[in-house]
């Protein structure tokens, strides 16, 4: 087919689910999620699956884009037979911000400000992946203290993100006390972030070349008090939810995904780990100094909503372990690379020397040039593999900045997860995928 013909197919309305008896068997099978099987040989044998065809006793309903339990502006079309979900389709783009385009207009110095607004529950991870990509192109080494500060901050961010997930998940499953507890505990971490970076969210703290500022005085006490409180609180959540019959009934055996399917759908993060694949980039392809810390990769066995909950719950504990090691091992030294090209001069020198002032001014107005090349870096964000594909053309702005957003990819596993379940369970399943719409739509 020519591109013209292919384009003609994409006119308005094709995003909608078609009537069941108008959909041809292959399309129906695809929409029901049947080709999403481990690809061995030919993908789809129509004889193998019983496609209930020609029945039109079904109802198509829309959930969202403005809906209290879709975690933002996600719209899901679901075909129901009675209360059973047959086909479903996430429709996204309601928060498309054009950040990849804006990222091409901003210099590398400003770039972190832009990417931090993508995944607003773990902004520091976004900054980290962008900075790692820029540093890989620049071939600069960052000092050990900067590495460990980055690790400390991103792990704290992972805790706050998972705690917030516990809160919203609790809210979706009608456990309102969980929501109040979750937000209360998140505030503790946010106040440390505010002290260090100046903002509660969207920090622009991790920048190419290091971090924006050193940790504040007395940071050890703050961090220690956080990681001494959080595990106790996690035990509380554990007691409140894990053993509770209602919660168990709503989560166990709901939305099961097999490891093969998860891999085929490119799912990463807690979804993949809950299905039993021990894949964590911090362990598998260590970045920063994750090779030097001791932690466990949490895996589930069944791959249902409960396992995903349990994985996240235990990851909070593991992150606390990592944070504790960061505090113990935090090296002394500089918090950013002293590379004249990339980082501004120390603040004190600006008052003394004209050159330093000019240098400072140039870094923040013109930025720095990055040699041509392309690079893909990936880190483990709370939601999965967060990647950044950066193409530089020698100027001070990225030529192409693409973020591989874990939620965007994980959202594809929703149709197979929802299929055959009850509509009441849909809320639990959506919540267990933990999509952050800012990152899905970018």
């Amino acid at each position, binding site marked *: 087919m020519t*591109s013209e013909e292919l384009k003609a197919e*994409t006119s308005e309305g094709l995003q909608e689910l078609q009537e069941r008896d108008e959909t041809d068997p292959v399309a129906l099978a695809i929409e029901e999620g049947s080709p999403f099987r481990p690809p061995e040989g030919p993908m789809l044998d129509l004889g193998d699956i019983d496609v209930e065809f020609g029945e039109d006793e079904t109802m198509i309903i829309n959930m969202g884009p403005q809906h209290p339990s879709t975690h933002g502006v996600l719209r899901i079309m679901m075909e129901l037979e009675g209360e059973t979900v047959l086909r479903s389709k996430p429709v996204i783009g309601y928060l498309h911000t054009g950040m990849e385009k804006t990222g091409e207009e901003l210099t590398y110095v400003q770039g972190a400000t832009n990417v931090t607004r993508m995944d607003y529950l773990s902004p520091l991870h976004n900054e980290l992946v962008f900075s790692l990509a820029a540093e890989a192109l620049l071939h600069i080494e960052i000092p050990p203290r900067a590495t460990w500060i980055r690790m400390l901050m991103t792990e704290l961010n992972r805790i706050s993100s998972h705690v917030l997930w516990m809160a919203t998940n609790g809210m979706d499953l009608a456990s309102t006390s969980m929501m109040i507890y979750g937000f209360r505990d998140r505030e503790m971490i946010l106040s440390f972030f505010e002290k260090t970076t100046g903002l509660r969210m969207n920090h622009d703290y991790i920048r190419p070349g290091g971090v924006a500022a050193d940790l504040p005085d007395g940071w050890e006490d703050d961090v220690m008090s956080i990681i001494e409180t959080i595990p106790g609180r996690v035990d509380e959540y554990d007691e409140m939810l894990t053993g509770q019959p209602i919660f168990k009934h709503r989560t166990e055996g709901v939305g099961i995904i097999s490891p093969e399917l998860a*891999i085929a759908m490119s799912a990463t993060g807690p979804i993949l780990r809950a299905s039993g694949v021990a894949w964590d980039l911090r362990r598998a392809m260590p970045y920063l100094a994750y090779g030097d810390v001791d932690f466990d990769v949490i895996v589930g066995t069944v791959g249902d909503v409960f396992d995903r909950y349990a994985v996240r719950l235990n990851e909070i504990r593991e992150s606390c372990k990592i944070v504790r090691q960061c505090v113990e091992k935090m090296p002394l030294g500089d918090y950013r690379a002293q590379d004249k090209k990339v980082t501004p001069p120390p603040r004190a020198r600006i008052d003394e020397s004209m050159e330093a002032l000019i240098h400072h001014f140039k870094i923040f107005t013109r930025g720095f040039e990055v040699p041509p090349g392309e690079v893909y870096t990936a880190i483990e964000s709370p939601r999965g593999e967060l990647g950044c594909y950066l193409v530089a053309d020698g100027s001070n702005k990225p030529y192409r900045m693409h973020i591989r957003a874990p939620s965007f990819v994980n959202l594809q596993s929703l149709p197979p997860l929802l299929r055959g379940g009850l509509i009441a369970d849909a809320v639990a399943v959506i919540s267990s995928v933990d999509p952050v719409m800012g990152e899905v739509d970018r």
Partner: protein
Amino acid sequence: MAAVGASAAELAGLSETSSIGASGQEVLHVTRERYLEVAGALRDAGFEMCADLCGVDYLRHLDRPLPEGVTPERFEIVVNLLSLEIHQRVRLRVQVPDSDPVVPTLFNLYPGTENMEREAFDLYGVCFEGHPDHTRILMPDDWEGHPLRKDYSVGRVPVQFKQAPGPR
């Protein structure tokens, strides 16, 4: 099975040679004709996850340096494959001409590329032949143009309601 340290091209027994890019990453340039075949061979060699797929518009760098034998074209589709077993990545770069921006879909090999290919189509206008749901994903259905192309301005667009006749 998999020898550690071997390049992905060797593992899959491909005729293409891979080059090592920035920070030691393996890059494989493939033609459109060999694209599916190479991806299939890599999948069988253990690269079972397609981590990422995105487009790049090289309008301003049509004469960029590429390894010998590769003709630079306007668009590029960049695919990142990942092997969970030997912890290795490989990146495929496919040149796609402006005159006929069509590549075959990877959906049948890696169902997880569904959203990514729709995104590349939406933002770059590169078509994926055989994709089961070839529609816009991020922009509204009736949007005109492909916003991430370099000849599409960043600029501000006044808001339009569907009913109101707008400037476009």
